[in-house]
């Protein structure tokens, strides 16, 4: 990443400045289209639009208060079959950019002709809170993000420590909004691709990033501490079969969490496949063994099994929790699982395109703690003891 950034005047607020700048990129034909959140006509939600006409850009919200669709999923949908000949800029949050990186590694997206533009993310409101009163939600979001208060945000956003390009170096251009007291924001190039855009826009890289980087570092430190504490608490609440089953006992098997998950990309989900649709004898045997069997069965298998499939690519965005109609803290549990699993395998989801996926790569000399040491001739020892 560059240690200098460009300055963008933002007298009328960050969003207006950003929209103005994006409009200019469209007019100058630096980008052919934008993928950007725009408020839906009914005014109660936001949706990504693949936007060609600069006039529509006036309605765009680069930083909407909610995340109804994870941007990584939108980017994957756009570029799954190839990157295309047109240049597209996607305005997304850092976790959405990280999901896009993961999906690219999983061959579900192509970023060759796509620029990821992220910004310092204040978090998003839980969808259900916002839908109760969209107008009040928007005000609440604006106030909270101005004060840097993550209290009303998604639980995963409250403990997010990868909210800026410094901790999530996934994007090509990053908008630094923290420390914008003098009515300007920073545009930080995150890749050579991003630098070229700033060159084409005649924006010199002459702003020092020290003040902004220091502020980001401070918040990151506080957030990391918060995350550690929250995860320790959560582990206390969920560890063990009894507590774990209590947490997931209200699950209605709607599989919404899987459907909205940006990195759950399988065309045929294992947990909806014939592998889990068994003949009645199987269920009756299990019912006999357990005394009774809950229907639909395999709820815990779905959640833990889904974790084995996607946890190493989990960006802890919390889209799953937003989609859960039963308010199961599934996003928080998965964020905890993801942190620990990714730490075990020395990987951070969405950090770079170069790091290989952890289940594809391996080292010869690693993870010896999972190999069970051999007790010499165990049987004979036992025979002797007897």
């Amino acid at each position, binding site marked *: 990443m560059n240690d200098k950034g460009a300055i963008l005047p933002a007298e009328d607020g960050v969003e207006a400045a950003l929209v103005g700048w994006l409009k200019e990129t469209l007019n100058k034909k630096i980008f052919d289209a934008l993928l950007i959140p725009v408020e839906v006509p009914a005014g109660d939600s936001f949706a990504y639009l693949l936007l060609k006409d600069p006039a529509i850009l006036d309605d765009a919200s680069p930083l909407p208060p909610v995340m109804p669709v994870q941007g990584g999923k939108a980017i994957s949908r756009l570029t799954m079959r190839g990157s295309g000949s047109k240049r597209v800029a996607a305005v997304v949050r850092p976790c959405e950019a990280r999901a896009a990186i993961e999906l690219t590694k999983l061959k579900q997206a192509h970023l060759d002709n796509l620029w990821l533009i992220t910004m310092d993310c204040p978090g998003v409101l839980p969808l259900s809170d916002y839908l109760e009163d969209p107008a009040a939600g928007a005000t609440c979001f604006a106030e909270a993000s101005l004060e840097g208060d993550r209290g009303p945000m998604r639980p995963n956003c409250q403990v997010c420590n990868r909210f800026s390009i410094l901790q999530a170096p996934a994007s090509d251009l990053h908008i630094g909004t923290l420390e914008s007291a003098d009515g300007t924001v920073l545009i930080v190039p995150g890749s050579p691709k991003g630098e070229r855009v700033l060159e084409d826009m005649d924006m010199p890289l002459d702003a020092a990033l020290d003040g902004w980087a220091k502020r980001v570092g401070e918040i990151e430190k506080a957030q990391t501490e918060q995350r550690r504490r929250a995860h320790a608490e959560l582990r206390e609440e969920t*560890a063990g079969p009894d507590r774990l089953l209590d947490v997931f006992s209200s699950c209605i098997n709607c599989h919404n969490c899987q459907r909205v998950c940006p990195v759950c990309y399988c065309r045929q989900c294992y947990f909806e496949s014939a592998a889990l649709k068994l003949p009645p004898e199987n269920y009756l045997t299990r019912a006999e063994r357990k005394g009774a069997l809950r229907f639909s069965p395999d709820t815990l298998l779905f959640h833990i099994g889904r974790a084995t499939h996607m946890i190493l690519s989990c960006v802890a965005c919390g889209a799953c929790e937003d989609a859960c109609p039963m308010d199961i803290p599934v996003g928080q549990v998965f964020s905890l699982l993801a942190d620990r699993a990714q730490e*075990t395998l020395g990987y951070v989801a969405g950090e770079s395109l170069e790091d290989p996926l952890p289940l594809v790569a391996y080292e010869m000399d690693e993870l010896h703690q999972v190999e069970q040491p051999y007790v010499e001739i165990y049987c004979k020892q036992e025979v002797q003891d007897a």
Partner: protein
Amino acid sequence: MSDEREFEPRIIYFLCSWCGSGGSETAAAHHLHYPENVMPSRVNCTGALPAVHIVRPLIEGADGVVISGCHPGDCHYNDGNFRARRRVALVKSLLDTLGLEPERVWFRYVAHGEGQRFVDTATEFNDHIKKLGPNPLKTRRDT
């Protein structure tokens, strides 16, 4: 009926078709015995064993899962056992985080000629699980 005396663990033993199964063949050729409640299951390569198949028996009735593939460097497909090791590490990490006893999963290399080592692993794991006791998820109807 005393549960402690009668507890007979249900154990799934995943063996790769080149080394692990070979180990069990060698054990058979030498007329070695291992506990009958250990159920061997052959997979083509431990590297081809999805993590979900390690978790599934643990949730639905097995007391332990043990996986044996070739020694490092001996894999028929060059690197399957290294991949398996990563997957086992992933499963153990998940089980540990959720408080679901990662020690119910064992991963140990067994070569084709190591019949004794295969039998020892089965016996040792059986005793280990007997000491741990039944898998608590086994009797839960709401899994």
